């Protein structure tokens, strides 16, 4: 697959100007700023400027106890907070050698996958909003509210979850939640079909996305881009399959990949991922074992043995890695958060050189950025 033809900007030395997009701009999804050097309508250089929502997560990890850092993990990527909860909790469990009861692992998988769908639904609405279609947002938020109702019932919050504990989860799920999951799976499947006819097959959308914003496999590798970005370039890299964690080994699901590497491929990957998440939820609900949801032997004051420990999960936007360094005290020595959006955005400058401005904004939307995830 070669790079689609890009209309080259004129070679003649001509007047360029700098266009500032953001930090307050509806297309940047938050407080990202882009410094664009433009030649007419063509971008010569697009330099992202970050840090407008830097919230000191890593420094805060060093001055509060292991458990006190938990609420922070819900506020890094607030759209897919469950996966971030999971990575941090599992890293500490790995360090302190805490076993997790099987029921808790299943609940973690169900809630993470529900959260992944709700995150992709927000992306779906917001991405199409960027491209000029307002209606899909209303459909997407309608479905998303159903998920939030269920998650709110078990976790107590709609968005910034702090549900997982060292050694399990804090609340058991009830029969209502299980029934809600089944109903939701039955509800979303026809809705995904409707999204296909309503949006995916729309000729205007295809013209806006097909062949736009080519990202090669090599570029993904060099920049460390993961998640739907690398899968949209045809690499079946998914932490759930390659480094299986929790109980993901026990489920039958596919990793959707599309080799085209353009915005449409990344769009299709996410749409297909929602269907795969539904499959996981369905299987997990069927297999959900009985038993406790919180391991009983967790000490109240946690002091993991000295050393450094990593845990990577597949968050909605890609690979999220937590590295914790312990020096056998109540407070972490260092918490390093490797977030997917940071790496995914870093290739933006190379990917958009020579592109037209509206296409670059389509690329930005197809990367699915959450800005506090970049800035931490």
């Amino acid at each position, binding site marked *: 697959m070669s790079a689609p033809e890009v209309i080259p900007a004129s070679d003649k030395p001509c007047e360029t100007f700098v266009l500032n997009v953001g930090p307050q701009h509806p297309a940047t999804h938050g407080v990202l700023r882009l410094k664009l050097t433009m030649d007419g309508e063509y971008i010569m250089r697009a330099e992202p400027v970050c840090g407008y929502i830097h919230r000191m997560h890593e420094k805060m990890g060093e001055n509060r106890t292991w458990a006190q850092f938990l609420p922070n993990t819900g506020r890094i990527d607030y759209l897919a907070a469950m996966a971030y909860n999971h990575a941090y909790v599992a890293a500490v469990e790995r360090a302190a050698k805490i076993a997790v009861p099987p029921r808790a692992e299943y609940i973690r998988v169900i809630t993470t996958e529900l959260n992944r769908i709700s995150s992709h639904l927000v992306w779906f609405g917001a991405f199409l909003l960027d491209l000029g279609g307002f209606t899909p947002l209303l*459909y997407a938020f*309608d479905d998303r509210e159903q998920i939030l109702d269920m998650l709110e019932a078990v976790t107590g919050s709609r*968005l910034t979850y702090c549900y997982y504990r060292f050694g399990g989860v804090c609340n058991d799920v009830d029969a209502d939640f299980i029934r809600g999951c089944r109903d939701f799976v039955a509800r979303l499947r026809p809705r995904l079909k409707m999204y296909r006819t309503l949006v995916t097959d729309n000729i205007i959308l295809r013209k806006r996305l097909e062949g736009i914003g080519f990202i090669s496999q090599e570029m993904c590798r060099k920049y460390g881009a993961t998640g739907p970005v690398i899968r949209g370039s045809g690499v079946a890299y998914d932490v759930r399959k390659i480094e299986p964690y929790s109980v993901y080994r026990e489920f039958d699901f596919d990793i959707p990949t599309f080799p085209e590497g353009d915005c449409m491929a990344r769009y299709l990957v996410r749409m297909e991922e929602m269907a795969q998440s539904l499959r996981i939820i369905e299987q997990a609900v069927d297999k959900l074992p009985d038993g406790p949801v919180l391991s009983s032997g967790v000490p109240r004051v946690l002091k993991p043995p000295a050393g450094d420990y990593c845990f990577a999960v597949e968050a909605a936007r890609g690979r999220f890695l937590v590295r914790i360094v312990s020096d056998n005290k109540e407070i972490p020595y260092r918490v390093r958060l490797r977030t997917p959006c940071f790496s995914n955005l870093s290739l933006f400058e190379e990917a958009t050189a020579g592109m037209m401005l509206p296409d670059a904004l389509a690329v930005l939307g197809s990367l699915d950025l959450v*800005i506090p995830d970049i800035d931490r």
Partner: protein
Amino acid sequence: MEPEKACSQDLSQIIKFAKLDELLDLSRANSLWPLTFGLACCAIEMMAAGASRFDLSRFGAEVFRPSPRQADVMIVAGTINKKMAPAVKTLYDQMLEPKWVIAMGNCAISGGPFVYPGQYAVIEGVDKLFPVDVFIPGCPPRPEALIEGILKLEEKLTGKRRWPTVTPQ
């Protein structure tokens, strides 16, 4: 009944006299145009408030405008850090009078969960930058809380509440 009298009675049904100030306040309160300005987590709840279920347009406040020149209420939805503060201040200064500010969420109220002794990045409350009319607590506040905040702002503008309140049983 004499025709003139009937006419004036009918007119009183459709013509009301009020002070121009009150009329202006009423129309402002009925059509608050917020600035499309999301900072962090609270912005997602702000989007949810404008989307299907919560439907902010019932209260006339759904016309989110990306340009500060066209907006008259700024919903500060999220954490403001030291790098962002000058930009937020500029946005506030660019908005035309009369203008109002809603501080949504704990970060905009006081810095929220990101404040600790010796922190280096976060502005501890948007009221350090410019005056705030309504504070909405929560981390993040629910969309209903945002709607209630907007109703409180209407109350501030018109001096009376136009919507019923629900008292807990």
